[in-house]
């Protein structure tokens, strides 16, 4: 893989002013994410993993340090529609059909009607939702709704996919299934993916790079380049390498806690 830097953070700090005084959400975060990588952010609540993702998306403004996305500021990248964002809840509009929901970003970005229809069909095939275009969100299961929201994020061909605990609200079986599908999707689209989770197996299974974070102040304690192959059947989770990586992640999380 060509080491082309997509996201570059240096000395990133973010402090929220609250009624109880300043909260250091991010402290001295340095990170490089290359094009086509699958990066997971893992850590306990309050470690700033979501905040960091929001900074990349330009939804939060860092108080110090530099952050570039495709060589642009996050704001410019947002303007250039460089990423699709998937939230923990699917957040589909109840008054739009699944097809209509996926069309939403395309309408906003001014794609032609013919192009909208073609893209909706393409991404719905990609997430295995073909045939559900005319259904309303309440007619779909939680897992299918989340797949629809991933399709929505893919529809406008952003090369970065930012996912904030997208499967956190789903049960284990559905989650395994979606993890597998997500890996296939990633292999086919070659997108750069930033993925927030607090599940160790999920992080290890999905990622080429695992960023371990710890709270108060939110910071990075370890960055692990996964030795696992790109091709990953579900039973890889029983292999020795997998367990070794999971171990290192667990150690990193524990170390972060001892510091506090």
């Amino acid at each position, binding site marked *: 893989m060509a080491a082309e830097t997509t996201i570059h953070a240096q000395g990133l700090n973010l402090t929220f002013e609250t009624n109880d005084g300043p909260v250091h959400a991010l402290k001295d975060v340095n990170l490089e994410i290359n094009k086509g990588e699958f990066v997971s952010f893992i850590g306990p609540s309050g470690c700033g993993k979501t905040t960091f993702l929001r900074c990349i*998306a*330009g*939804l939060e403004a860092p108080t110090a340090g530099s952050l570039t996305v495709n060589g642009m500021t996050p704001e410019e990248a*947002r*303007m250039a*529609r460089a*990423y*699709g*964002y998937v*939230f923990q*809840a699917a*957040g589909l*509009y*109840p*008054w*739009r*059909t699944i097809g209509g929901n996926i069309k*939403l*970003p395309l*309408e*906003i*970005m001014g794609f032609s009607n013919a192009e909208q229809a073609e893209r909706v069909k393409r991404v719905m095939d990609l997430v295995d939702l073909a045939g559900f275009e005319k259904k*309303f*969100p*309440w007619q779909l299961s939680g897992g299918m709704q989340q797949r629809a929201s991933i399709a929505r994020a893919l529809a*406008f061909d952003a090369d970065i996919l930012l996912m904030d605990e997208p499967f956190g609200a789903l049960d284990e079986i559905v989650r395994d299934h979606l993890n597998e599908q997500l890996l296939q999707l990633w292999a086919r689209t070659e997108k750069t993916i930033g993925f927030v989770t607090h599940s160790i197996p999920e992080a290890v299974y999905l990622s080429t790079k695992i960023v371990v974070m710890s709270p108060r102040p939110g910071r990075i304690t370890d960055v692990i380049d996964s030795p696992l192959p790109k091709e990953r059947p579900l039973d890889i989770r029983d292999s020795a390498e997998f367990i070794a990586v999971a171990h290192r992640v667990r150690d990193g999380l524990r170390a972060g806690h001892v510091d506090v």
Partner: protein
Amino acid sequence: MKSLLPVMTVIGSIVLFWIVSVVPMNMHLTADLAQRQDIAVTPDTPVARQDYSGIGLALRNTHLFGMTYTLDRPRLPSPHQVAVEMWDTIFMKNVTSRRSLVYHGWVTLSATLLGFAIGTGLGILLAVGIVYNRAMDMSVMPWAIASQTIPILALAPMIIVMLGSIGIQGLFPKAVISAYLSFFPVVVGMVKGLRSPDAMQLDLLRTYYASSTQAFWKLRLPASVPYLFASLKIGISASLVGAIVAELPTGARAGFGARMLVGDQYGQPMVTWAALFAAAITAATLVGIFSLVERWTLRRMGMQAT
């Protein structure tokens, strides 16, 4: 249809209570009348009867029960008297006649609908202003709330007289009072509805770099539709009340309000009661129509009506 039985039960109880109440309410009048027709009444002088309550007098003169239901000018008309009056004035009169309740109903309804349209339009505009403009957010809402604390009975004649003095008469002043009562629920409901999308949904639109105009048409407005319908149903009945109240203080010659006043002033309680019921049926019909439109719209929007 499931609600039919409970609704009929409630209506039945009310009618029953009404029928029972007719006897004591009309007893004194009936006793006076009976005495003039040489029917024995205890006690036998009107002065002595004043010492008794309606119920007490009724218990001593059970043979007069039947007469209480057929007085020409009862204190409380019986249900069938009101029904007969309504039948006569709704179905048996030419709708252009001044004696037709349909004619009076249309006079009130036209003011109601015009006022409702003005009030709803104004309410939506104010709500959009409140949601998008901080200065309006801080300033308009307290005034809107204050406006609803002024008794409309005190305000209505002032509005009618002031508009009359600059030559505006007839339909429009009544519509203004209707609008005055109906804009408020629309403002409150629409502000809540336009603000109902959560932070995540607004963030999602930010990641698309959507403009605030796009956020309004694609997210805020559709999200507010269920709230709008709830407000419209309150607003339309408030509008009808407004139009009737506007007819009361000015000696209007037509409309439900005018009929109620005429019945009161000329001692024709059946006229008052018939107008009252016709107004209630009109309000219920209007609300019912909005419920149907609501159900149809929300189903088309993929949402279940609640």
